[in-house]
């Protein structure tokens, strides 16, 4: 079965593409979450569930 399929599987680029895509997306996403100013923003976002409809955060 293995030989039979591998001998006729004509898309080896597909697996390479998958691997490259995966690494690029993951590293890109990681760098993006550490971009400038994100810490303050994330701090703010983290508090959203605790507000419960009240208008505590004045200017945001």
């Amino acid at each position, binding site marked *: 079965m293995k030989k039979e399929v591998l001998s*006729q599987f004509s898309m080896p680029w597909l697996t390479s593409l998958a691997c490259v895509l995966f690494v690029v997306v993951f590293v890109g996403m990681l760098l*993006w979450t550490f971009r400038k100013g994100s810490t303050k923003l994330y701090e703010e976002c983290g508090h959203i569930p605790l507000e419960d*409809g009240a208008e505590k955060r004045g200017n945001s």
Partner: protein
Amino acid sequence: MNKSTIGEMESFAYDDGITRKFVWATLVWGVVAMLLGVIIAFQLASWKVNLGLPWTTFGRLRPLHTNAAIFAFVGNGMFAGIYYSLQRLTKARMFNDTLSKIHFWGWQLIIVAAAITLPLGMTAGKEYAELEWPIDIAIAVVWVVFAVNFFGTLVRRREKHIYVAIWFYISTLITVAVLHIVNSISIPVSLMKSYSVYAGVQDALVQWWYGHNAVAFFLTTPILGLMYYFVPKAINRPVYSYRLSIIHFWSLVFIYIWAGPHHLLYTALPEWAQTVGMVFSVSLWAPSWGGMINGLLTLRGAWDRVRREPVLKFLATAITFYGMSTFEGPLLSIKSVNAMAHYTDWIVGHVHSGTIGWNYMLSAGMLYYMVPKLWKTDIYSVKLGNLQYWTATIGLILYIISMWVAGITQGSMWRAIDQETGMLVYPNFIETVVRIVPMYWVRAIGGTLVLLSFIIMFYNMVKTMQKNTSPLVDEAHKAVSFRAKKPEKEKGHRLLEGMPMVFSVLALLAILVGSIIEILPALMSSSYVKKDENIKPYSALELAGRDIYIREGCYVCHSQMIRPMADEALRYGKPSEAAESIYDHPFQWGSRRIGPDLARVAGKYRDIWHFRHMMDPRSTSPGSIMPAYPWLFKEKTDFGVLKKKLSVMNALGVPYTDEEIENAPNAAIEQAKAITQVLQESGVSESVHNKQIVALIAYLQRLGNY
């Protein structure tokens, strides 16, 4: 205070009525789902519990149990949590109350339809996607209603940022729609019968891409969203690391979609696809544990409260089991581990550590938090909460451990080869069944404890609701309108999450990349699955028998896929090849061997053996736990519909000639008469050629015989 009296301040109220409805549905369906689970657990311990009735046999009730647990219990719980948290996270009422109601009642109707059709044997024969095409369409419609309501609410939100829980909800909305539609495509034969457009290896890959991601995007991502809302809420502090939650989200969504093929390791699925599935499954361990650590660390310094409060107790346990089952899953995906664990009860134990440990526990924590708030009162009894907690935990541990023992025992027995003779140590499959029946009793007792614990919660919740005697009025809240605010200069994250649509498209892309790369080669399988001239389409009678096989849910206990291993070759014969199932709409490879594999059962036994075996399995196989199927000897085969069935198969690419289609009923009757004659020579006195048993025998005697 009127609208807009203070600048851009708006007054609004949350729709908690709809959440209360979903809470009720969660409680009711939870009992039903777990009761069904307990019934089928006892059926495996003692075949008599099948009751000898068609609609109460294991093969028909197990799909009902899985559907009820996933879509009715967890589904309603998820909706309750989403309706509660979405409104609060966006500071907005649900977009449209009517849509909310259509969603609620539509979903309940679908569940009722499932509860009626599955015991009647109306099934598409694909695991976790058994429902027939009219119900599938209803699911798609209700899902779209939910999506419109959901995104409408997002558009009207008064909170600029979209909290990470909502991201998880969005990924569920999009992915479940894609999975459901792609996997359910079929051509109807009648109102309650259809054939999948996919066949064989292609159907296997699509089905497990769906099946695995039903676990991922129905039982995991939305529940993670609920975790990111309810854990901070319950402990009144923000999540440990918001940044980690975002990394958790993107890596989970991107990786999960690839993992499906780990359900098909060592099958006739192309080897490279199996390896991709395994590698991504192992990778999944990282984001899963990132999420678990994030959840647990949110509780840091508050462990004394975890000891005292049911809400936190359930939530902390849920997160712990999330960690445990997301460790076990990657482990089981490693091919060498899977070689032993696949088709055994280990997988069943793993699934339940996820559904009971993670889904049930998190739902319980959520309900203990939400119900007192929604009914504006306090919990009726903390003591009952603790009792429930320990009953459920002990039941779950009994369940998991008995299934580990049963799975590893049976897996070891199957593969045991005598080193001197080179023969199987346990050549008779039944030996490996009888050995684990005691574990089935332990599992049934564990399951009963879990059911009892849920009933305790049911009582506790109803008592809590009754504590409130005043009418429930939705409280008014105030918040600044989002749209009235001046636009700010924004970029990056803000831009991305400020636009739900852009975000949704990105999430869709993340899941489509994996899906397309994985499924594309399968859709082109005709180019690499070598055609075998000897493999002919099923005869009309065999096809009728195959539909009976599907109706009775035989695939729930019997696989049709021999893996390329020495012990399987000795026990079942030559390993299965992709070419052998190219006409199987849907494929019937199965996922569990409660009974032996049937891929090459043809010719192994005489027709009369099958005849007696279906009437009373213990007469031919002493110790068998299979239910008897007496109704197959009374109900008649519908020969008339075969013309239609063959022509639908023909439309799906199965090469029947026009003549074969036209002549289908007569050909079937002729073949049935031939089988009946053989049976009569073996001592069957009554005339049975038009009974379903004959069609089933025709099908079984065809499996592997080309």
